């Protein structure tokens, strides 16, 4: 909402200066976006200095000037003026400027083979005098230090631009703003002069509002103005329209616009001679069409509120008029409309047809239904004053009467909500200035809400009115209440926090990527999940919710590889979506690692990252986050985007369907499809939701501290075993031989090839044996050794290597 301070002062008697007004507006909730002069076409003309004027290579009469325009580089301008010489101060017009004399727009052009960037101006070209023999010569003492500044002072009045919240339609008019300011003590609202307009005759175009279910209009007021002379608006009116950032059109259109911005009362003027017999306000039928004032043809749906005559649709009520009945300079007789349209109907229609107009914006938020006559009178007066003519009696048709909103307000609610007290007297004064009718019934105030405030319906709205006018600075700053109702984080939130930092500490950079992704990449990772398209995506390559955390990670990994990075570790923790309903999502960590370990190391051999690098990262992170070591089982069931032979799943229980984590190489076909160029690429993921909540806190889970001081022995075994036999099972078999005595089993060598039969491998393990009761003698140890060998051989089919 734009307006000038002068305009405001038409409605407000105030001693406040501009800055005080600006501050006050913001303080009462009418946020000032900007306060500056409107731009002028003359802003582009600047003071410049000719640094060097030489003769044009192809034309003796022309000069080639290097011109200082206050920026880093000089500009080259071709100039025909005889007085162009070194050191001359003059006026420069850059390309794009409009020359006042001939209204021509300058462009970059070649003059006799040399490009000229703009031009140097004569007084006549700037309409300053008739002097056209040479360019302006500016006085050195006045302009020498103004090079680069605007030559013309911008004399237009500064414009206030307010950002009005959707609940305040009343402040979409200058009078409403003045009213708010007056309530806040910034001045006195001027009383509207009583009109002494003389009416002649009746409005004899019949108006009917059809009683239909979907009727979007409840009041239609109008008057006829006969014998007008439409013309250009006078300067004061043009200036007002320009200050709104709009273009003046004709007196009649400008007046209706002016009244709309002045009183927040949209009006529409029809050329009465173009109306076919009568006005019918009705709901549209599908397929009806009309050409609107924005020169577009609209085809209507059912139940849109239209103003029509016998020939068809004239316009969309409260949104936009039609060209068929539009006013022109030749218009002699006008029908002026001032109506009330229902916000819901306006909103629906404008959304369906995608039209946005100033009138629509206002009706959608709620226009004062009691401002019908006021608008007609104010506009008629102005039309009569500027265009002449005779005004008929006002004709107001209604299908519904306005019902007052009454609120019983207990002033205690104010203190209870805001924490501070305002005397009843002051409170009543504020409300009265805002237009409320206040009467007292014991402690309760009975308030009649002004008709221009559709947003006010209940007592809390009254609290807001008083506190915003009184000023938010009056609210106390209480000490924060520290009472705690429950722990800050629950188990899964803590897990999130631990895992996030634990993974980062393994050398991964955390990233945050969109929750949506490219369906083409998502396709490669979505497994059996349903695709979740976004109806209105921001772009076609962000068109689905991600079914997996990897599509974006892989996409950005590739981008970084393309940037020339070779060793990259990235991770993200966030949602992956399993379905389109709220809650169909999992919290997942996804991590990718590409390149080499120990690249260019002077002492270690470099190697490509592999599955056991990410296995370490994922397992260690899980341990660090408090997942019990003994609760973890590794399996080779993995999703299809992993390399089928080089990936694993981490399960908390053998029967569990859902792995808490996966790790391994990404499937080679995906690397090929996405054209990822890297030496090695391994990934892991952790699904937080599948981790079982530990039912013990650390304080309860520390077991008794036990240790043995008896001597421990270590024995090494090597077995020849089937190639596909899992080392984890071998370890379990050995452990189960004697859970008490066998303290640990470590695989320290795996070997295939020479001396090992086809389809077999050799696994070497180191077993630590220790008793808690005695020192084991050779005999005890031999027994255990034999047991270990026999158990492994019988349970796994392995043979001890001799």
């Amino acid at each position, binding site marked *: 909402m734009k307006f000038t301070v002068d305009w405001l002062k038409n409605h407000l008697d105030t001693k406040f200066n501009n800055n005080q007004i600006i501050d006050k507006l913001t303080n009462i909730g009418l946020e000032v976006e900007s306060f500056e002069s409107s731009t002028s076409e003359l802003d582009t003309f600047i003071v410049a200095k000719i640094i060097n004027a030489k003769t044009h290579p192809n034309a003796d009469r022309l000069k080639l000037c290097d011109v200082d325009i206050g920026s880093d580089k000089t500009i080259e301008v071709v100039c025909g003026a005889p007085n162009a010489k070194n050191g001359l101060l003059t006026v420069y017009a850059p390309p794009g400027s409009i020359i006042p004399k001939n209204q021509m727009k300058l462009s970059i052009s070649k003059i006799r083979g040399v490009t000229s960037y703009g031009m140097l101006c004569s007084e006549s070209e700037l309409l300053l005098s008739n002097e056209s023999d040479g360019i302006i010569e500016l006085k050195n003492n006045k302009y020498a230090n103004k090079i680069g500044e605007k030559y013309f002072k911008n004399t237009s009045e500064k414009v206030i631009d307010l950002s009005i919240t959707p609940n305040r339609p009343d402040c979409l008019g200058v009078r409403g703003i003045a009213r708010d300011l007056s309530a806040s003590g910034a001045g006195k609202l001027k009383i509207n002069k009583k009109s002494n307009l003389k009416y002649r005759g009746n409005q004899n175009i019949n108006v009917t509002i059809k009683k239909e279910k979907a009727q979007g209009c409840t009041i239609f007021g109008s008057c006829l103005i006969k014998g007008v002379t439409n013309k250009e608006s006078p300067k004061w009116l043009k200036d007002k329209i320009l200050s709104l950032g709009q273009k003046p059109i004709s007196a009649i259109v400008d007046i209706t616009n002016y009244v709309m911005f002045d009183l927040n009362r949209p009006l529409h003027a029809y050329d009465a001679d173009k109306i076919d017999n009568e006005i019918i306000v009705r709901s549209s039928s599908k397929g009806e069409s009309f050409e609107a004032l924005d020169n577009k043809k609209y085809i209507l749906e059912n139940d849109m509120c239209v103003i029509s005559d016998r020939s068809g649709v004239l316009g969309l009520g409260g949104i936009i008029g039609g060209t068929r009945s539009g006013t022109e300079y030749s218009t002699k007789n006008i029908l002026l409309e001032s109506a009330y349209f229902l916000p819901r109907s306006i909103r629906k229609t404008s959304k369906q047809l995608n039209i946005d107009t100033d009138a629509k914006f206002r009706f959608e938020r709620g226009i004062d239904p009691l401002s019908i006559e006021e608008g007609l009178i104010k506009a008629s007066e102005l039309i009569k004053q500027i265009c002449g003519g005779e005004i008929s009696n006002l004709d107001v048709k209604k299908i519904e009467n306005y019902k007052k909103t009454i609120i019983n307000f207990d002033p205690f609610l104010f203190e209870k909500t805001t924490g501070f007290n305002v005397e009843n007297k002051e409170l009543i004064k504020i409300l009265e200035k805002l237009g409320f009718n206040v009467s007292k019934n014991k402690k309760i105030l009975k308030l009649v809400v002004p008709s221009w405030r559709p947003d006010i319906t209940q007592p809390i709205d009254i609290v807001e009115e008083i506190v915003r006018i009184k000023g938010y600075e009056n609210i106390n700053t209480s000490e924060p209440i520290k009472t705690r*109702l429950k722990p800050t984080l629950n188990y899964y939130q803590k897990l999130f926090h631990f895992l996030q930092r634990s993974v980062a500490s393994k050398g991964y950079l955390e990233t945050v990527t969109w929750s949506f992704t490219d369906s083409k990449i998502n396709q490669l990772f979505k497994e059996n999940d349903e695709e979740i398209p976004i109806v209105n995506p921001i772009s076609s390559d962000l068109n689905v919710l991600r079914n997996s955390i990897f599509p974006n990670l892989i996409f950005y990994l590739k981008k970084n590889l393309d940037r020339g990075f070779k060793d990259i570790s990235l991770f993200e923790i966030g949602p992956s979506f399993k379905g389109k309903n709220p809650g169909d999502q999992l919290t997942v960590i996804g991590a990718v690692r590409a390149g080499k370990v120990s690249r260019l*190391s002077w002492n270690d051999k470099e190697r490509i990252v592999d599955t056991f690098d990410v296995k370490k990262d994922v397992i260690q992170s899980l341990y660090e986050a408090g997942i019990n070591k003994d609760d973890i089982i590794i399996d080779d069931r993995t999703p299809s985007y992993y390399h089928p032979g080089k990936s694993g799943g981490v399960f908390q229980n053998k029967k569990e369907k859902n792995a808490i984590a996966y790790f391994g190489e990404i499937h080679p076909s995906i690397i090929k499809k996405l054209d990822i160029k890297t030496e090695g690429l391994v990934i892991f993921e952790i699904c937080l939701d599948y981790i079982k909540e530990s039912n013990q806190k650390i304080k309860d889970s520390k077991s008794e501290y036990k240790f043995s001081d008896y001597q421990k022995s270590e024995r090494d075994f090597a077995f020849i075993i089937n190639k596909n036999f899992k080392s984890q099972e071998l370890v379990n078999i050995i452990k189960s031989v004697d859970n008490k005595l066998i303290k640990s089993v470590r695989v320290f060598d795996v070997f295939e090839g020479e001396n090992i039969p086809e389809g077999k491998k050799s696994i070497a393990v180191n077993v630590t044996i220790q008793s808690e009761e005695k020192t084991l003698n050779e005999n005890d140890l031999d027994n255990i050794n034999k047991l270990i060998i026999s158990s492994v051989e019988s349970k796994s089919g392995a043979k001890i290597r001799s």
Partner: protein
Amino acid sequence: MSDIKKIKDNYIDKLNTENNIEKVNNIKSELFGKNGIISNEFKKLGSISVEERKKLASDLNNIKDELQNKISIKIQEIETKEINLKLEKEKIDVTLPERNIEIGKIHPVSQVIDEISSIFSEIGFSVEEGPDVENEYNNFTALNTPDNHPARDMHDTFYLDNNKELLLRTHTSPVQVRTMLKGKPPFKIIAPGRTYRSDSDQTHAPMFHQVEGLHIDKNINMGHLKGCLNYFIKEFFEVNKIKMRFRPSHFPFTEPSAEVDIGYEIKNGKIVIGEGNKWLEILGCGMVHPNVLKNVNVNPSKYQGYAFGIGIDRLGMLKYGINDLRAFFETDYRWLSHFGFDPLDVPSNYRGLSR
């Protein structure tokens, strides 16, 4: 006796100049071996008179101690020298690079969320979450924003179906609705998370982060709201003084509503919070609208309180001098390394919010 003294002095001299460990050992056996000089002198003691013996024995013992002492010092001296020489040969170039250090980082958004959670934890708030996909009711209707309300235009919404029933939440406020529907007052929560709006330009990203705050109890008023936010802003920016301005505004789900600006100025191209006379809008807040309380089965005549919504990304940009919002989500390795935080920098009260 004087002979022995002479012998002793002689050996002491020898030892002083000797540098070979074997030769020192030879001297040792020459003196103290089975037929060593000193050993033999002791043997002679049995054949002399008692008075003489006393005197001689004492002298002999002194000489023996002196020599033995000298020998052991010498041996140690030589051994130390030898070790030092050996170690000198083993010297390596310690300026050669260490094994590769792999430095991971926490994203600024995560760090800021942790900072915010830490601050609010201090004053008793707990953390709640809600889904990214919401239904129209929780995101709008329950929050007093019916379908025909122009306030809906302020949110450019991503929809998942043509009926506009399912959407990506446009703010974290639906977590208020979920929290209150599933529990009983009082409520004291914050809810950080992802939010989505379908606009994208230099200052807007289609996904961003908000933190919602909600405190509902019997007597929570706007003074508490002001106090809570004043505390938060001061703690967050780690300054002693803050210039803060509450400005009336409008959100359908709060009444009265406010936007909060903080004072700042630009010093040497950097933004300084808490001083100066420029204002920067950083959050929206207000008293929860009675209609919202009714929608979630909380009796507005018994309970009242405040809610607020803060843009997390924006706050992080301000605090850490990050200019471009879009860069947050572009996964540029250089940017992540530059603006990321060490994983050990866990914001906490006792260790300080940030290093």
